[in-house]
């Protein structure tokens, strides 16, 4: 009986240690703890709006510009989607990383030819 109890305790400790190890080694590699660390776009100067504002509002901003451009024919060339691509040279690196993290799937790039 004593032997059985100590055996069970040892197995329990072994399982616990294994779990700790898996958590310590395995998790950071697969699951990210915080929001994705984004790289700065190279080559470009300042964004057309402050960075924080853009992070929160770019979706409404793009939608607003879209409505103006398509329906009213107002083209603001310095603020077009094509202009974004001059600094943000890839939608997989600059757009999709956050979109995947927050779980949104805008379908802009099904039609708009943005660099991969």
């Amino acid at each position, binding site marked *: 009986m004593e032997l059985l109890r100590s055996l069970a305790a040892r197995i329990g400790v072994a399982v616990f240690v294994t779990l700790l190890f898996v958590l310590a080694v395995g998790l950071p590699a697969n699951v990210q703890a915080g929001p994705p660390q984004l790289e700065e776009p190279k080559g470009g100067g300042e964004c057309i709006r402050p960075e924080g504002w853009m992070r929160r509002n770019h979706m409404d901003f793009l939608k607003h510009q879209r409505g103006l451009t398509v*329906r009213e024919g107002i083209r603001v060339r310095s603020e077009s989607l094509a202009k974004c691509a001059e600094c943000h040279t890839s939608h997989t690196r600059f757009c999709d990383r956050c979109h995947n993290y927050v779980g949104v799937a805008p379908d802009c790039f099904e039609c708009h*030819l943005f660099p991969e």
Partner: protein
Amino acid sequence: MTMDRRSVLGLGGVLAAGLVLAPGMRLVAAPENVTEASDKRRWGMLIDTTHCDAACTACTQACRTENNVSIVGDPQRDIHWIRKVDLHDKDGRKPDRSLPVLCNHCEHPPCVHVCPTEASFIRKDGIVLVDMHRCIGCRYCMIACPYKARSLVYSKPKVPPDANTRVPIRAKGVVEKCTFCVHRIDDGGEPACVEACRKDGGGSMLFGDINDPNSEISKRIREVSTTTIRADLGLKPRVHYQGI
């Protein structure tokens, strides 16, 4: 304090002017990189069929390259923004003609009237467009259009390797048509078909502002005998034909 009639009216006028001007940030000189479609303009086209060769496909080819219109391969589902039509008079009194047919950008477009989502609309300068962000692909407009100018995107479009990045491709399930190369017009250019016709074709296409009496197209329409296709429908198309 009492005010006479004149000063009350004057004050009202000043207030009204203030109300009009206050939201009117556009009164400030616009930056050079901003352009807007003008409601003073009406874009139109004149096609001289006497100079259009039946074997020439310069305009249709240029349109496909410019607007990323790929060939599907199934004749029933192929997408045409502009296509060549051959005319043959059964009585033989009129010579055979070949002419390009594209969206006529009607003044009273039936496609716009039937659109349930207001995806089809008339831009201020008279160009009839489809807002792909709103189109649900119901195809009412395709049935309404007497010119067969519209096509549904039945399958995921192929993106050509040398695609023109200025023109977005259209996703599966929307209806697309000629835009008069609206992106070129807004940059002060002319449609790709007109340019190609002048370079590689018979130079039979003329594009311009038919609201401006001094434009070349207005002068030509005044001088020569022109007609529109299915003028009897009263849609007032803006693609005029000469010689049919």
